[in-house]
């Protein structure tokens, strides 16, 4: 059971807080000799596997590290282009770590505002009167829970599909937001939340919810 991440979106659709609490990593490291038997391509400033799924390396996975050194987008740690580096037979044998690409902060901003619009469309396409937007979105790997306050702020929690007790966690996060962000005189409304107490209390609430929710009805 796990809670993967928390997003706070302001009423205009801007991301004002994001926390990744736990992400199970599906990573595979393998040593390759010269003609690389995977097809790599550049996509969104990342080097992704386009063809040649095997040994836990799947299409869509990104190159995360080369010879134990983390890759920085499409560049290696010492500033060379990954594709160029891997195209040079002199650099082999090489050990490459593949995994799901991590979200950059720009992508997180984009996804948050994307959810803001999906939320609104979900309520417009409702077959019933007076529907809210998306409150829970279910996939086979995670569930997204969203709570919108009366003032329009959305709290979004990504959790394991079997994790229970998310509704009370969302209200708890609202409480923490009210107590430690809104009551902080240095916090300006609608702006990114940078409050230490908010951080600490949120992490504490996530820990409590993860433990408490394990034996809930959903698990």
């Amino acid at each position, binding site marked *: 059971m796990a809670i*993967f*991440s928390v997003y706070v979106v302001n009423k205009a659709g801007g991301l004002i807080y994001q926390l990744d609490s736990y*992400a*199970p990593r*599906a990573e595979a490291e393998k040593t390759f000799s010269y003609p690389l038997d995977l097809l790599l391509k550049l996509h969104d400033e990342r080097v992704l596997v386009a063809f040649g799924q095997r040994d836990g390396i*799947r299409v*869509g996975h990104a190159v995360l590290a080369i010879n134990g050194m983390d890759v920085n987008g499409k560049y290696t740690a010492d500033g060379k282009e990954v594709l160029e580096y891997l195209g040079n037979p002199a650099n082999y044998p090489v050990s490459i770590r593949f995994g*799901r690409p991590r*979200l950059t902060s720009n*992508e997180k901003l984009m*996804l948050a505002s*994307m*959810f803001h*619009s*999906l939320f609104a*469309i*979900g*309520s*417009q*396409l*409702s*077959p*019933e*009167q*007076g*529907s*809210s*937007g*998306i*409150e*829970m*979105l*279910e*996939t*086979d*790997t*995670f569930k*997204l829970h969203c709570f919108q306050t009366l003032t329009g702020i959305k709290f979004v929690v*990504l959790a394991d599909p079997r994790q229970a007790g998310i509704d009370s966690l969302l209200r708890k996060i609202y409480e923490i937001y009210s107590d430690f962000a809104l009551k902080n005189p240095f916090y300006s409304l609608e702006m990114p939340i940078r409050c230490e107490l908010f951080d600490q209390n949120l992490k504490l609430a996530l820990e409590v919810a993860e433990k408490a929710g394990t034996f809930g009805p959903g698990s």
Partner: protein
Amino acid sequence: MTVHNLYLFDRNGVCLHYSEWHRKKQAGIPKEEEYKLMYGMLFSIRSFVSKMSPLDMKDGFLAFQTSRYKLHYYETPTGIKVVMNTDLGVGSIRDVLHHIYSALYVELVVKNPLCPLGQTVQSELFRSRLDSYIRSLPFFSTRAG
């Protein structure tokens, strides 16, 4: 429990079929626009979900719910999308949506040489079979007749 409506899209976003049973509110836009909005929303949700997922996904997006309804989604490898809106009391109905695809769409539309693919389904047989199948579902109507 009740079924509100059902959309069937092909992989290009053409609405192949639409029917509704207990729908209280219309979207307030022409039907054609509504299909496009629905398809656009699902398209975005699919890409949203594949980016957000912490793990590699198999089936991907399954369903979402708001305070008043639940949208169930099923997609075949060929990109046919079956979307059904029900009320909140309905659990997972993947098998129902799969049945609509495999036993109704494939049997009565794909295997019918008189039904051109990639446009709205005109087959009266498909419509009536679909309607009677939906009406026979255990969760079809326990609230309103």
